[in-house]
């Protein structure tokens, strides 16, 4: 299995050159992508700051315009409560709707637990 083993195989096939250059290219590609994304974020923030400045909002001067995860969560909860749990305008008509119940001995009061079970 190891009869062909020789370090010279690496040298003869440009193994070191391909490995070093290949690894560097992977690094460069991802480094470039990382730099572009970082700068893209900066451009977006500066555009946002410009917009706030034109409106005259005081947040334009804030050092950090970023909204933290906690703040986002709090805003989301507030929206949820506002739209989903709106008790102030609850429809009270529902509470006086007459419920039709067909008679059945299974649901009858007469046979309910008010009577002691017969032995």
């Amino acid at each position: 299995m190891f009869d062909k083993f020789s370090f010279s195989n690496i040298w003869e096939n440009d193994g070191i050159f391909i490995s070093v250059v290949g690894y560097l290219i992977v690094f460069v590609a991802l480094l470039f992508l990382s730099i572009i994304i970082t700068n893209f974020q900066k451009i977006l923030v500066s555009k946002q700051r410009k917009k706030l400045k034109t409106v005259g909002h005081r947040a334009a001067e804030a050092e950090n315009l970023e909204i933290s995860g906690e703040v986002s969560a709090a805003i989301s909860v507030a929206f949820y409560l506002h739209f989903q749990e709106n008790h102030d305008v609850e429809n009270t008509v529902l509470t006086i709707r007459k419920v039709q119940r067909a008679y059945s001995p299974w649901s009858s009061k007469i046979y309910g637990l008010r009577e002691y079970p017969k032995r």
Partner: protein
Amino acid sequence: MEGINQFISFTGFANLTIGHIVMIVIGLIFIYLAIKKEYEPLLLVPIGFGILVGNIPFVENVGMQIGIYEQGSVLNYLYFGVMKGIYPPLIFLGIGAMTDFSALISNPKLMLLGAAAQVGIFLTFMAALALGFTINQAAAIGIIGGADGPTAIFLSSKLAPELLGAIAIAAYSYMALVPVIQPPIIKLLTSKKERLIKMKPPKAVTKLEKMSFPIVGLLLTTFISPGALPLLGMLFFGNLLKESGVTKRLADTAAKPLIDIVTILLGLTVGASTQATTFLTPESILIFVLGAISFMIATAGGVLFAKFMNLFLKGDNQLNPMIGAAGVSAVPDSARVVHNLGQIEDPTNYLLMHAMAPNVAGVIGSAVAAGILMGFLLKVI
């Protein structure tokens, strides 16, 4: 009487060899690991069962057209997608449609961890060369260190189709064994103090950033490494379908039915390709050993690079070096392993989001590495 004799000579019992028994046992182990231990069941069940299908002994080349390597057989048609590298880009489309790159966008420097972990590919490439494999075979073996099954299949189908079965099985086996292989290496290379580091929560990412990422990512990475176009093109396309918000149906199809169908076909045929008569060779065993070494080096490379980055990062910007191990692209298993290790050390330390960043960067990194190797070696051919 002659008919009965022929029938008997055609049965599995008459054609059984030790190789078949060994492969059937391996298939059963895969199925056991998937069902009992729940190691990557979506991959190991199809592959394990495929190994059983591929190793039912039969008489080859008598016109029955049942073997995966026999022209015209059903399995051979299904295997076409593996041989020609059709399935891997489709899998990448689904992965793209499922992946949330927010963690990476919110902390782009973590992308370097995804690059660092690719050291396993290139060191194993050199080791395989030293062991006497041809340069194309060595590159295909090295890519196992990327811990990315589809990428490994894609590259080996282009550079060393003769080793495809062994490489695919090795790559998927090690992906499934992430929870076994990575923790000891991570623990060996990090101190308790380092494992306890809490990273600051990732910041919120805007929709515009999320939508721009696949476009910028595609243009940049494929201009540098055009060989990775089929993989990265599909990965970023799938992600744009998801993030654009206007193609929900397409994104859902790519992320659910399509990737499931392709996974079934890929898993089953890759498993069946391990037919004992062509698979059980000393070379295959060597590929398994090299694959394991490659995976370990990749894990160590990511962890050590995270420690190196910490030399330049201060205060709450410091990284928990364990997340470097997620730079191998076994998504999301290695991120999950890192998270679980963090939880063992401190149950209030949530590393999953942080580990997902190098994890998805690893997918991009290994595909870029595959493209680079293709770029180098297709010239040599």
